[in-house]
């Protein structure tokens, strides 16, 4: 997540779940932790039982709120206003942890004089290019520093951003790690600290109350509780999940929390941090070792069509002169050796010229558009159910119908596999089975009990699961499928002379197989990921051992060492009661370097002593001359606190002894992100793509950089704010999960014991809204947007409150779980059919947590009536326009 990546250096949760028990205050926001991470929530309960304050800020009163000591209801999509208000409160009343902020963040850094803040440009930062619809970030840079991305490429208009900026490699021009211009006293008008102050000046409690719909008292209580529970003696933690990410401002929301936690000195310390709660068993792993278009394993950027004509420029553009990203080339060369073995040589630039190039966006929603426009012929889907789980499911299903061939791999026949004969569009006649040309292969998959492998959980922990039984009949693991697919393709192309087949021929694809079905050995793959010294075959102990001369091979540098000493470190299962501390470092393996709480050098003061006895974690042992503590120090073990980098120091050596954020070029946490984000160096409140309100702060209503599908008929948007026609879709809708089900339901609607616990799609509405819209508890409601209309049972509850907004306006919110689809033991309409595909610009995530809808009593029209109904409302809104 670049929100965390750009702020701290790594795109992962800064802490681990068990450490939440040490928090004095936990703010859960953008997450419904008790419902969606119940077992992790035990650590929040531990903290609560020890007297910690648990604050839940959420549009709904959920099972998490019920456990909290405080719940504050806010309007969906107003999180940045709320968090920005906290920043304002902290700065206004000098509640920040001064020593921490001075030494460990970039607060003192002075910013280029050309930088213009949104406060002075009505919602736009300097560098906005209306034609291109993007920012030129040159004016955002540190004063006296060229923006990173060496000469010769600026013109090509591409800098590492989004996930690839997970490393925030913006170090160009840093002199031995120190920014050219700083004001340690934080008083210079252009220092980050003062810019921050000005940026949030208008985020007063009153503005927060007006924008979020909460009370000034509740908001202030949150600020004060947080501040009172941060500092030397106390720490506070934040927990978030997709309630923050699934917005057109998702990354910036997380950034705001990162700013709050930096100001309060809560990063890298026990009971502090930002806990990113991922939704899937290996969602962290699937970004670390990405099945994402724009990065290679370990957040190395994919080569881009518009930049890096040559290998040198690619390396130069991504290598930070200082910090751990200074060794970028070693990471990349070792990956190429893992991919192509002896075929990748210094002479052929490690095959750089043969690598595929990406454009600025080749994300899932881009692909859907390509499908709809007939540009995609084949699609392989493994363990995902876009027909239900993705925003605007209808667009997806229509897209699938335009494919030549489709492969779906899952345990059960999910909606995505059945779209051609059993989907809403078939029912409505928009698709006719006999007219769909798509050739569909459904291949049954193996379950976690039927294969070896590792998941990377929400706290960067790689845990190995062992095969318990053989998969039955045709069921196979993805490892089997992709290995044998690759084998077959290599066979077919073995004799090819085509230039395009160079890479596939060069691909190193030998893995030992076992059992009758020739299942590849997952451990052999993990060994390749962990890395070896090629000449000796010795397993590497970690990424510091990686070389840029092709002598080492490593499939994912941040995972390097997970097979150190030839032992599968991820399979370690030493019971926690046999381990010295609650950190339990001998249970599985965490990246990086088995650290559980990262940036933990910050748990000690600049001199290396614990900030307080109560919050002792990692400290400098002067006698031993090394860092020690409960965890693996996230710092060069023998680098003294008073270490000052020599002139011309490079990479990690250029990080001073009192700078804990070793991934960052300047070794500090970034309050202000000079480079790496598409939509600004500082988070700013923008309204969602669809909301009933104008932006209370600027004329610029929504995120200017958000991605929209202009001119895509399948993805129309509702009129908003005071636009005519907005009254057709007057309510705020938010989608979510329930404890009893999992995402698109493929893994739970097929399970009897879970199906019976939440058997039907329902919507949650407040009694006032029920009265207003004529809804009857237990009856049916039809919810509609300009995309589609669905039906749901009506659950009238006080738990989803109407909010009092500016000048007495009331906003009603509609709650929609999104687990149901047309197939399974229990079925229902899919909430995601209502959602649009406008995206966050950094990570291309859709905005399903806040959009607008209309609602009326009764079941939805059937058959061809449905599209007609939706179209009529759209016209009604359009005419009004």
């Amino acid at each position: 997540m670049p929100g965390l990546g750009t702020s701290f250096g790594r795109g992962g949760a800064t802490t681990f779940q068990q450490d939440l028990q040490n928090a004095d205050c936990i703010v859960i926001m953008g997450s419904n932790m008790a419902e969606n991470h119940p077992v992790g929530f035990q650590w929040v309960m531990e903290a609560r039982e020890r007297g910690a304050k648990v604050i839940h800020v959420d549009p709904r009163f959920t099972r998490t709120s019920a456990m909290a000591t405080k719940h504050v209801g806010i309007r969906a999509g107003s999180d940045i206003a709320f968090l920005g208000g906290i920043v304002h409160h902290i700065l206004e009343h000098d509640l920040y942890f001064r020593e921490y902020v001075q030494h460990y963040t970039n607060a003192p850094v002075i910013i280029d004089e050309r930088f213009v803040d949104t406060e002075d440009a009505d919602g736009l930062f300097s560098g906005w290019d209306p034609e291109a619809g993007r920012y030129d970030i040159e004016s955002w840079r540190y004063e006296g520093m060229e923006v990173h991305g060496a000469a010769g490429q600026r013109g090509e208009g591409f800098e590492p951003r989004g996930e690839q900026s997970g490393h925030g490699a913006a170090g160009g021009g840093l002199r031995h790690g120190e920014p050219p211009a700083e004001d340690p006293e934080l008083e210079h008008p252009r220092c980050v600290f003062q810019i921050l102050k000005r940026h949030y000046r208008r985020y007063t409690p009153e503005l927060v109350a007006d924008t979020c719909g909460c009370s000034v008292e509740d908001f202030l209580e949150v600020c004060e509780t947080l501040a009172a529970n941060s500092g030397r003696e106390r720490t506070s933690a934040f927990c978030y999940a997709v309630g923050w990410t699934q917005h057109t401002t998702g990354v910036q929301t997380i950034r705001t929390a990162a700013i709050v936690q930096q100001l309060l000195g809560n990063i890298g310390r026990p009971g502090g941090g930002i806990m990113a709660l991922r939704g899937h068993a290996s969602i962290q792993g699937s970004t670390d070792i990405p099945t994402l278009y724009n990065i290679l394993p370990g957040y190395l950027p994919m080569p881009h069509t518009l930049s890096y004509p040559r290998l040198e420029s690619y390396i130069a553009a991504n290598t930070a002169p200082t910090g751990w990203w200074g060794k970028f080339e070693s990471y990349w060369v070792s990956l190429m050796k893992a991919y192509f073995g002896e075929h990748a040589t210094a002479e052929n630039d490690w095959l750089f010229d043969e690598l595929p190039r990406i454009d600025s966006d080749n994300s899932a929603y881009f692909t859907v558009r390509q499908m709809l426009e007939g540009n995609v012929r084949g699609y392989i889907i493994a363990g995902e159910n876009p027909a239900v789980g993705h925003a605007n499911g209808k667009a997806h299903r229509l897209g699938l119908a335009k494919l030549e061939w489709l492969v779906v791999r899952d345990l059960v026949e999910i909606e995505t596999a059945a779209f051609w004969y059993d989907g809403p569009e078939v029912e409505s006649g928009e698709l006719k089975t006999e007219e769909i040309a798509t050739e569909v292969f459904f291949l049954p998959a193996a379950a976690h009990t039927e294969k070896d492998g590792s998941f990377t959980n929400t706290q960067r922990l790689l845990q190995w699961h062992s095969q318990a039984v053989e998969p039955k009949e045709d069921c196979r693991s993805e490892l089997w499928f992709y290995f044998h697919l690759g084998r077959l393709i290599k066979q077919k192309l073995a004799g090819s002379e085509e230039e395009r087949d160079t890479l596939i021929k060069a691909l190193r694809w030998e893995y030992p197989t076992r059992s009758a079905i020739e299942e590849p050995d997952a451990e052999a793959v993990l060994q390749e990921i962990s890395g070896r010294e090629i000449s000796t075959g010795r397993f590497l102990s970690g990424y510091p051992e990686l070389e840029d001369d092709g002598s080492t091979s490593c499939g994912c540098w941040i995972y390097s060492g997970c097979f150190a000493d030839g032992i599968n470190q991820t399979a370690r299962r030493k019971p926690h009661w046999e381990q010295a501390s609650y950190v339990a470092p001998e249970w599985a393996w965490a990246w990086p370097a088995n650290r559980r709480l990262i940036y933990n050098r910050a748990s000690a003061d600049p001199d290396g002593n614990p900030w307080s006895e109560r919050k002792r974690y990692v400290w400098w042992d002067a006698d031993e001359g090394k860092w020690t503590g409960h965890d693996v120090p996230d710092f060069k073990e023998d680098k003294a606190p008073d270490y000052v980098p020599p002139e011309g120091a490079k990479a990690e050596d250029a990080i001073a002894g009192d700078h804990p954020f070793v991934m960052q070029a300047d070794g500090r946490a970034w309050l202000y992100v000079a480079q790496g984000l598409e939509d600004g160096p500082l988070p700013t409140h923008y309204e969602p793509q669809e909301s009933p309100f104008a932006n209370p702060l600027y004329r610029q209503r929504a995120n200017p950089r958000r991605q929209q599908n202009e001119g895509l008929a399948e993805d129309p948007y509702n009129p908003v704010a005071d636009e005519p026609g907005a009254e057709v879709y007057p309510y705020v809708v938010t989608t979510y999960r329930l404890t009893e089900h999992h995402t698109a339901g493929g893994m739970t609607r097929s399970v009897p014991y879970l199906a019976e616990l939440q058997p039907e799609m329902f919507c949650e509405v407040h009694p006032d809204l029920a009265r207003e819209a004529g809804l009857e508890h237990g009856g049916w409601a039809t919810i509609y947007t300009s995309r589609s209309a669905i039906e749901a049972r009506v659950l009238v509850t006080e738990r989803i409150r109407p909010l009092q907004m500016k000048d007495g306006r009331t906003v009603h919110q509609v709650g929609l779980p999104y687990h149901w689809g047309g197939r399974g033991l229990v079925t229902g309409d899919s909430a995601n059919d209502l959602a649009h595909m406008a995206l966050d610009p950094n990570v291309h995530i859709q905005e399903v947590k806040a959009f607008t809808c209309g609602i009326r009593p009764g079941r939805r029209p059937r058959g061809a009536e449905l599209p007609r109904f939706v179209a009529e409302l759209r016209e009604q809104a359009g005419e009004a326009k």
Partner: protein
Amino acid sequence: MSAPDGLASYGDEQQERVGFFTDTSVCIGCKACEVACKDWNAIPEDGTTWTGESYDNTSALGANTWRHVAFVEQAEPLRSRLEAPPDEAPAPGREDRGAPSATRPNGDSGTPLRWLMESDVCKHCTHAACLDVCPTGALFRTEFGTVVVQQDVCNGCGYCVPACPFGVLDRRHLAPAPDLPAFAKEDGRVWKCTLCYDRLKGGHEPACAKACPTQSIQFGPLDELREQADARLAKLETEGWEGAQLYGRDPDDGVGGFGAFFLLLDEPEVYGLPPDPVVTTRDLPRMWTNMAVAAGALLVGVAAAFSGRRS
């Protein structure tokens, strides 16, 4: 405390009496207990009806539900204690603002809101009506002091069903179990929580307690659980929780105390529990005497019918 009926019969095979303490103040309503129970005991799925009763679609304990999580939404504060402000000094930026927030209940400002969740289960009474009235000995007191229906004995007479003051037991009307004779159209036997009798025999804790993410369900020797419960109630008291009360903890209650007792945050009936359950067999001796007299009266009455003059 009075010993559970029948436990003495085990002599030296007798184990320490175990049970559940279900602390609803930490229940997150995840229903792991319901699933864990069904999963371990291979209880059939029994219907997918949406009730609209908050998040409860299971509705009640029964033959196919041995753990049931109740959900109650109330316009009540969860806690009522006046909490001291975060720090003694008046909070910055607060000087001129109204009442300190500390007086607010949880839930956002305005009407308070709380969501009570409680995982219900068979109470394994010290004096168990179901056990007393069972005519076949299918229901019996185990060496652990729990009350279990033996499925190889139960003939589905149904007497225990109305006898239970908590409505725990019911006859299973679902498709026959594999071990059933051909003619049987349904299972027909009575089922309820066994407190995982087989797991206890293997030295494992019951499935629901094992699964519970927040230890709302605690398993252990009953005496220890009672001490923990008393301490817990005291703690909640100091924290100002509304209406906290122990239910079924007292050995002197109508059923001699529960083997599985609860900490509730409101009156029992709010959770669908009887406020003052009694084991009706405690009146049985008097009922037998009463019946004997009635029987005698019948004898006399008939005789009297002949005392009249003969026609």
